[in-house]
Every structure is written in C-alpha cells, then in structure tokens.
C-alpha cells in the first residue's frame, strides 16, 4: 500500500505525464480508503484551474507610455 506522501506525489505526476498502469491502480486503491488524499487531489485539480484562469484574466498591467515610446522608436527605426 502506498503511503499518503507517495500518493500525492503520484497525484501530481498524473497531471504531468501518463502514469504506469500499476501506479494508477495503487493510487486508486489508496484513494478509496483515504479521504485526506482525495481532498488533496481535488485541491490540485482546482489549482490547475486557477492558474489557467489567472493567465486569461484581463489584467491591469500595461506598458507605460515611456516603455511604449522606447519600443516604438526601436522597431520603427529598423
């Protein structure tokens, strides 16, 4: 049986790559009996959602007028 620590590392790895079948099985077995790990995995999925949504937000970051001028000079002088 996997420990919780091993399970959550696999849970994270599962977001980045395809796990081997035995790893998936071991993870599932552990999750069946461990509510804390189930929560953790849910939280990880939520984090992924947040990071994607943060990236898509209309942001209030703008090029300053000075920066815009500097860029304009450089790109139009070539």
């Amino acid at each position, binding site marked *: 049986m996997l420990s919780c620590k091993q399970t959550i590392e696999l849970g994270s790895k599962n977001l980045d*790559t395809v796990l081997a079948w035995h790893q998936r099985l071991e993870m599932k077995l552990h999750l069946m009996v461990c509510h804390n790990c189930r929560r953790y995995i849910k939280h990880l999925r939520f984090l992924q959602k947040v990071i994607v949504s943060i*990236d898509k937000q209309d942001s209030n970051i703008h090029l300053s007028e000075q920066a815009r001028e500097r860029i304009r000079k450089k790109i139009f002088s070539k």
Partner: protein
Amino acid sequence: MPSKTEKPEDWLDDYGDMLYCYALLRVRSEATAEDLVQETLLAGFQGFEKFSGKSSVRTWLMGILKHKIIDFFRKNRHEQTLLKESDLGEDLLAHQFDQRGHWSIELLEWKTPDQHLSNKQFQQIFQQCLSRLPQRMLDLFMLRTIDGVSSEDCCDILGFDSNNQLWVTLSRTRMRLRQCLEIKWFSNS
C-alpha cells in the same frame, strides 16, 4: 492572405499590452518583458510576408513571444539559482506527514472552489502565493502547466537533470501553493 485591417504599425497599440502582460508574468522583470515585446514585434514585421493568415495575428504574435521567452530562459539557464532543499519544502513535508508518510494534519474541505475564481481578493491572494515561490519553481510551473511545454523541453530550458527531478519539483510547487491558499484563503472564508 493576412487581413488588410491588420496593419503592422498598429500592432504595438493593439497587442503591446497583451504581449507585455504575458511576458511579465513569466520573466518578472519589466525591462526584460519590454525587450521581449520589442523583439516579438520586430520578428513579426520581418516574418509578416510569410504569415499565412491561418491564425489571427494575435495568436501568431503570441506564438513568437512564447519562443522568445523560452529562448530567454535557455540563455539564462546558468544564471538561475539552483533550488535548495528548503525550497523543495522539506520542512513542509515534515510538518504535514508523519514518519511513515501518512498525513499528520487534517486537510480542509474547500467548499465551492469555483466560485472563488472570479473573486478579486482571491486572485490577489493567489498571486501572493505564487510570488512566494522560488523563481525557478515558478518558471517551471508556468511553462509546464500554462504553456504546456513538454517535460523534456522544460528540463532542457531550465536545466533540470531528469524528468523525475522535474516531477518532484512540480509536486512540491503544488504542495506549497496548496498550503498557502489553504492558510491564507480557505481557512478564513
């Protein structure tokens, strides 16, 4: 054919902020982000002849910027500070798990998490949590999870020795973010 309404001389006004914002979120230096926007626009001017018009100019310019950012990371690989044991959250592990690797804390249930996504305060807290991460962890997290750069390329760009090291780092990054959000947001909300 590229649309006639897209005049390269308007790109700075039309897409400058978008490109800058994207770059700044990743390189975290205003000067570098500004340079990247400039290089992207220049490359766009030079390549516009070859632009097929299959995608929008916006998407096309973003594609150029992504390559420029990756090049930037690759060039500066040797200047990046290596992660220390403490960055990987060994102390956090010790706090959360007992010696057999079982939880020694009770995780909170995050109620209706999706509702928080559009909350401005939540977004600020999340940004704070991101900014507490060591630079290299954040670079990796952004490249891998938002930009979808492959594990192999991430290793190459950021100078990780192996995929395994990469996965462990990503796992610890998420652990730190999770912990930060739980403490700063979910335990108060």
